[in-house]
C-alpha cells in the first residue's frame, strides 16, 4: 500500500474500544508476516510486560497464512503498556488449524485488547480461540473476534470463547464476536460472558485460612487457566501465568 495511511477512529468496527488517541506517530502499517508452509507447525508467544523496552503504545499486527494441513499456535499475555493491541489476521487453507490463547490484565486507565480476524478460506479447517481478561481500576480489556467462513470452506469447525472478570467497579471489558458464514456445512461456536469474583468461593477459601490476597490469586489463576490449557509446554505455560498473576498481585 502506498500513500498516507489514515488513522483509525472509533467509528472503525475493529477499533471501537481502542485508545485511538495514542496512535499518531505509531507505525500502523508494520505488519509481521507469518507463513506456515503446508504440513508445518508454527508456535509463538507474545508477552507485553513491564520493562524498559515496552513502549506506552504496543501495537502488534500479525498477518498469518496457514498452509494445507499446517498448524499455528499463538499464546499472548498483554500485561503492560498504556495501550496494547495484538491483532491477528489469519487465513486457513484446507485442513489447517489455528489456536489462540490470549490474556489481558490491567488497571488504572490502560487499554489492552486482542483483535482477530480468522478467515476459513478452504474446507476442513479448524480454529480455537480462548481469551480471558481481568481488569481493575479504570482498566479496559477487549476481545474482538471476527470469523469469516467462505462459501467453499465446508466442514469448518471454528470456536471462540471469551470471559471477562472485573475485580473493581470502574473497570470494563468488551467482547465483540462476529461470524460471517457463507458455507452451509460448518460448526461455529462462540461464547462471551463477563462477571465478578465469586463471593461464595472467597468466603469458603477464607474459612479455610486463605488470606483475601491468596484467595484472589487462586481464583484469578483458575479463571485465566482456560486460555493456556492448550499450551502444552509446561514451562512456558507457567511463565505466562506468572506474568499475568504477578501483575494482578502487584496492583491490588
Amino acid at each position, binding site marked *: 500500500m502506498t500513500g498516507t495511511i489514515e488513522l483509525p477512529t472509533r467509528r472503525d468496527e475493529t477499533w471501537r474500544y481502542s485508545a485511538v488517541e495514542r496512535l499518531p506517530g505509531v507505525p500502523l502499517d508494520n505488519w509481521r508476516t507469518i507463513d506456515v508452509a503446508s504440513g508445518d507447525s508454527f508456535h509463538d508467544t507474545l508477552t507485553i510486560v513491564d520493562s524498559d523496552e515496552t513502549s506506552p503504545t504496543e501495537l502488534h499486527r500479525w498477518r498469518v497464512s496457514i498452509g494445507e494441513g499446517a498448524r499455528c499456535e499463538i499464546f499472548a499475555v498483554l500485561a503492560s503498556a498504556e495501550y496494547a493491541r495484538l491483532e491477528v489476521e489469519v487465513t486457513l487453507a484446507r485442513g489447517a488449524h489455528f489456536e489462540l490463547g490470549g490474556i489481558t490484565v490491567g488497571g488504572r486507565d490502560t487499554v489492552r485488547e486482542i483483535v482477530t480476524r480468522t478467515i476459513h478460506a478452504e474446507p476442513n479447517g479448524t480454529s480455537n480461540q480462548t481469551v480471558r481478561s481481568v481488569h481493575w481500576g479504570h482498566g479496559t480489556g477487549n476481545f474482538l473476534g471476527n470469523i469469516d467462513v467462505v462459501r467453499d470452506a465446508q466442514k469448518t469447525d471454528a470456536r471462540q470463547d471469551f470471559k471477562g472478570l472485573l475485580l473493581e467497579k470502574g473497570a470494563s471489558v468488551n467482547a465483540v464476536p462476529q461470524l460471517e458464514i457463507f458455507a452451509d456445512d460448518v460448526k461455529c461456536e462462540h461464547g462471551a460472558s463477563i462477571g465478578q469474583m*465469586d*463471593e*461464595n*468461593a472467597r*468466603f*469458603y*477459601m*477464607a*474459612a*479455610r*485460612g*486463605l*488470606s*483475601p490476597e*491468596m*484467595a484472589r490469586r*487462586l*481464583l484469578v*489463576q*483458575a*479463571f485465566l*487457566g*482456560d486460555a493456556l490449557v492448550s499450551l502444552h509446554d509446561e514451562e512456558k505455560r507457567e511463565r505466562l501465568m506468572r506474568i499475568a498473576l504477578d501483575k494482578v498481585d502487584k496492583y491490588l
Partner: protein
Amino acid sequence: MLKIDNLHAEIDGKTILNGLTLTIEAGEVHAIMGPNGAGKSTLAYVLGGRPGYEVTQGSVEFMGQNLLDLEPHERAAAGLFLGFQYPVEIPGVSNVQFLREALNSQRKARGEEPLAAGEFLKLAKEKSALLKLDPDMLKRHVNLGFSGGEKKRAEMVQMGILDPKFAVLDETDSGLDIDALRVVGEGINEIMRQPGKGVLLITHYQRLLEVVRPDKVSILSQGRIVKTGGPDLATELENEGYDAVMAA
C-alpha cells in the same frame, strides 16, 4: 473454649440471632438442634465471619480472643473450622492446591514452617482413607462434580488435614445415606474427640448423634437457646417434636 454471650445478629436489617448465649468447654461436643428458620446456619456463619452477617450486640470469645475482631481467615488460623452445609464448588482450583495453600497459610499465620509437598500429600491421603474418599478426588477441582455425600466427606477430609481446635459443623449430615453418615460421624470422632478440642454440631436429626455422641444438646429457637440438656434431649425431640419439648 467458646463463649457466646447475648449475641444479636442481623442480615439485611432482619434480626436472626436474638440474645444467644452458649458456652462450650474444651473436650465438649455440643449439638444444636432447632426448627427451620431458628437461626442455626446464621449462628455458623456469624462464627465464621461471613460478610453480610452483622453482629449488633453481644460478644464471642474463642480461646481467650475476641473472635468477632478477627477476619474470617484469621479465625481459621486461630483454630476455628466451619463445615459448610453447602460446600462451595471452585472450578479451576484443585483440592490439593487449595488445601495445601490453606494449611500453609494457617501455619504461616501461627509462625510455623510450611509443610512440603510430599508430606502434605501423605497427610491428605491418610485423611481421605479415614473418610473413605477416593484419594484421586483430591486431584479434582474443589467440590466440582462431587455428589452431595462426597462433598460432605470432602469437608471432613479438609477438617482432618487442617486439624482445627474447634469445629462448627453446619448440617454435615444432610444429604448423606446411612453408610456415609456413619463414616462421617466416625471421622468427626476421630478428628475432633480429643482433649482440648471442641465441636458445635448443628443438626436436624438424631441419627448423626447416635454416632457422634454429644455431651450436651441445646435447642435453638427464634434466635436464642431455649433449652439445654444431655444427649437424652435429642431422643426426646426425635420422639415428641420441637413444639412439645419446648412447651414442656
